[in-house]
């Protein structure tokens, strides 16, 4: 703020801020920038506000008051922050916080919300939709009933059907009045052309004309406005009682509070709808024996996979870094390029290529390296786990090699020199000097790598797809599945229907586990830094 003071005319009382008189000269700060910045700012804010007004208009039109209120509050806050001079930290933080809110906080809360619902393939809409779909699918065409040519008529908000029966008779009827022989539509009714039929299609589709006075003889309905068939309904919906009744057996289906119409014997009507079911998804994950035991094995393997992947990559990377860092080694550059190569291939590709190379009978590994032995690399549970670890090591050591090379080269020579003077051997220097110093630099990266491998979806998915399958569960999960691939299979898998609710519950569990690991390990890292 030093420049502000120097630019204030001497003698004049220092003005608080330029808001009161923006025209007092460009150097008087309306904002912290010049006139160009001011114009840019006003234009950009104007765009935001214009979009916000449009958004509010739409949201209020939809009756979505909560979203409208949130939008209004956010935009008001943004305007306040950028128009008011000062609060510089706010100006920096706002965009970041904004994205944090959209991409992190909202996602977590929404996932959390879904995990308390039964959202899935068979419960994916509202109860209203479910009721209308059940009504629609319960319409059954009377076997071998003929096709009737129909014309649609309208009077005020009444709709009627003029029917030519296959025998040549003609008749007219409406929703209230059953078919009656007539040579044409009554006076005052206007025939709808195709365009009008399309415009009033909801009403036309709802036209339901009784063939006789007895409703059990069926009703005429049309699906295209030109042909009608006789339908009978197998289910009747009672709006007041909120129940469906089977017209033949008399079985009553009522709302079971879990998103289904259920009869007393437990049979349900499809589809169901989405409701909040509380902790059921979490309880299911821990109590259902189809999922409980496999889930525990998957969790253990996930930890083992993440730990060994990180450890193996680090160990190999560090080893190569030390070897290639040796002052007397020739052709270092060449070796380093070779080592980094795996890093350049996308995992999706290498996963598939490795799967082919590990084929039991025709794979390169068995054919060439093991002389035609049939080693079941990918179909034996333990060998499959080993294969996944080895392939992931191959994919990941280059990164560790780069990191370790950098860290080794930045170690202070004098400390090592001093150790040598004290008579320490190479191993001693490595263990007591280099490694601890290295860890200070690499530990956060190791934690990040661990967290990454914890959710290392592509390598598992492309290499083994989680196979070989567990034999003691009907869920399509297997020995090499980690939690994230298991969640994927439950949410989007090829087997049965998708279950977003359960998948969200498992995601939240993963989130909690990863958060705990991160918290603990960063605390540990701090104590490492104290070594320094």
């Amino acid at each position, binding site marked *: 703020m030093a420049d502000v003071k120097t630019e204030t005319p001497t003698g004049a009382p220092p003005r608080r801020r330029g808001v009161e008189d923006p025209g007092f000269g460009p150097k008087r700060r309306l904002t912290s920038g010049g006139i160009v910045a001011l114009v840019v700012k006003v234009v950009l804010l104007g765009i935001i506000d214009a979009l*916000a007004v449009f958004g509010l208009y739409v949201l209020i039109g939809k009756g979505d008051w909560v979203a409208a209120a949130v939008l209004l509050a956010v935009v008001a806050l943004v305007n306040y922050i950028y128009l008011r001079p000062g609060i510089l930290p706010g100006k920096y933080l706002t*965009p970041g916080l904004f994205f944090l809110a959209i991409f992190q906080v909202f996602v977590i809360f929404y996932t959390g919300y879904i995990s308390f619902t039964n959202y899935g393939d068979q419960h994916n809409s509202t109860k209203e939709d479910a009721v209308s779909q059940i009504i629609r699918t319960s319409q*059954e065409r009377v076997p071998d009933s003929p096709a009737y040519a129909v014309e649609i008529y309208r009077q005020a908000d009444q709709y009627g059907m003029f029917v030519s029966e296959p025998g040549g008779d003609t008749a007219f009827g409406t929703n209230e009045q059953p078919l009656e022989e007539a040579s044409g539509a009554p006076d005052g009714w206007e025939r709808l052309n195709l365009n009008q039929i399309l415009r009033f299609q909801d009403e036309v589709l709802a036209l339901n004309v009784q063939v006789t006075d007895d409703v059990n003889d069926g009703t005429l309905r049309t699906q295209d406005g030109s042909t009608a068939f006789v339908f009978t309904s197998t289910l009747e919906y009672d709006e007041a009682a909120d129940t469906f009744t089977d017209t033949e057996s008399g079985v009553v289906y009522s709302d079971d509070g879990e998103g289904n119409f259920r009869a007393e014997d437990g049979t349900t009507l499809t589809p169901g709808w989405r409701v909040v079911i509380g902790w059921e998804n979490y309880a299911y994950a821990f109590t259902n024996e189809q999922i409980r035991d496999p889930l525990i094995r998957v969790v253990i393997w996930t930890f083992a996979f993440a730990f060994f992947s990180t450890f193996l990559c680090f160990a190999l990377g560090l080893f190569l870094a030390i070897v290639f860092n040796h002052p007397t080694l020739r052709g270092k550059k060449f070796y380093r390029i070779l080592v980094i190569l795996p890093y350049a291939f996308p995992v999706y590709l290498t996963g598939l290529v490795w799967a082919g190379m590990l084929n039991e009978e025709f794979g390169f590994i068995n054919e060439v390296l093991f002389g035609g032995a049939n080693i079941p690399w990918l179909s034996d549970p333990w060998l499959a786990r080993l294969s996944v670890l080895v392939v992931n090591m191959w994919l990941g050591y280059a990164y560790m090699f780069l990191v370790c090379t950098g860290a080794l080269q930045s170690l202070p020579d004098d400390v090592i020199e001093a150790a040598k003077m004290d008579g320490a051997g190479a191993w001693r220097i490595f263990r007591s000097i280099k490694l601890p110093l290295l860890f200070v630099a690499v530990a956060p990266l190791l934690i990040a790598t661990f967290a990454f491998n914890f959710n290392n979806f592509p390598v598992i998915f492309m290499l083994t797809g989680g196979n070989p399958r567990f034999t003691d569960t009907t869920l399509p999960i297997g020995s090499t599945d980690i939690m994230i691939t298991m969640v994927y299979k439950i949410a989007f898998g090829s087997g049965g229907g998708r279950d977003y609710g359960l998948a969200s519950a498992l995601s939240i569990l993963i989130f909690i586990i990863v958060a705990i690991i991160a918290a603990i390990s960063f605390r540990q890292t701090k104590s490492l830094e104290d070594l320094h």
Partner: protein
Amino acid sequence: MKVNRKGVVGLGALIAGSAVLLAGCAGGGGDTSETEEGGDASSSITVWVDIERKPALEPISKTFTEETGIEVELVTKDFATVDQDFISQVPTGKGPDVIVSPHDKLGAYYAAGVVAPLELGDVADGFTEASLAAVTYDGKVYGVPYSVENVGLVRNTDLAPQPASTYDEMIAAGQAAGTEYPFLVGLSPEQGDPYHLYPFQTSFGSQVFAQNADGTYDGSQLVLGDAQGTAFADWLGTQGAAGAGVFNANIDGDKAREFFLAGQSPYYLTGPWNIPAISEAGINYAIDPIPSAGGQPARPFIGVNAFFLSSKSDNAIAATNYIVNYLSTEEAQLSLYEVGGRPPALTAAYEKAAAEDPDVKAFGTIGETGAPMPAIPEMGGVWSDWGNAELSIIKGEGGAPATVWQTAATNIQSSIG
């Protein structure tokens, strides 16, 4: 000034973010207002189609537009995931009016409540019985079929001049040909392939679900584990690694084709999709019925591609008209046949196509005996255990084939409840 620039950049980022957010709101809102008011929305219908079939639908859609004044918007979707998109988007009101889809997804569509039943009337008479059964669920027709596909036995006529009538004859001829493999079929080393092995299974009289009188399947009656199923499992064991070694789990679909193209086997069990590659490779081939292993006819699965109507279509009348009256014509079905090469479902169109192309006729004849792939939601829970059981049996793992088979059947029964 450094400070100011950063401020402006941050502001720009903020605006970009808000714009994205607002665009999202606006898009959603726009759709709703349009559809709720009706009017404009009813002048067009949206069809989800894959890129291959799109050109075939264009002329028919044009005719439709000319005759009714309703625009048809053909939206290209990825065929592999179109069923999942359909199930999740229809309830939001953003789905299409019409979707092109394989029939075996029908059960899932029904369970999710995203398809509406169609009344075909006289149009139904033009279709083959199997293709209609495929699009029928719980007694009601939900789609208009347009193509039928199934596997057949492709024979390299240079290596095996005569067709074989039984499985044993085929293997004997295959061994006599002196090639590396007597017979090839693609299996997955991880999941097996019940689809390709199904003809052999049916030749023992084994099915997955019991069939109702009208050809549809009863999801409550899993018959996989019955005596016929066990007989098939025992037989499969004798042909796997522990026995004759004809079936090899390590030969996947790509390898099987590669070996056949290289002339390493006279017989190859595959579908019409591999015929172009075989004929391009210059192999003299014939397409034979699948030989029986268990004495009864070997019936492959029939896959039917069909058009379905969304249950939340804003324009159901126009869409129904389009599906039932325009896509079921001989012209439309032939035009779809020409782009995809799959035998048409409409009998009249199929006969024309078969007269022109002997391969279509051959696959179509085999398909006449086939069984529609069950289109019930329970089917989704069957594939994985089923394939794994076959895989274990072929590899000779997990004990006696009959035990492995029974375990799979019990597992499936408990998962579909």
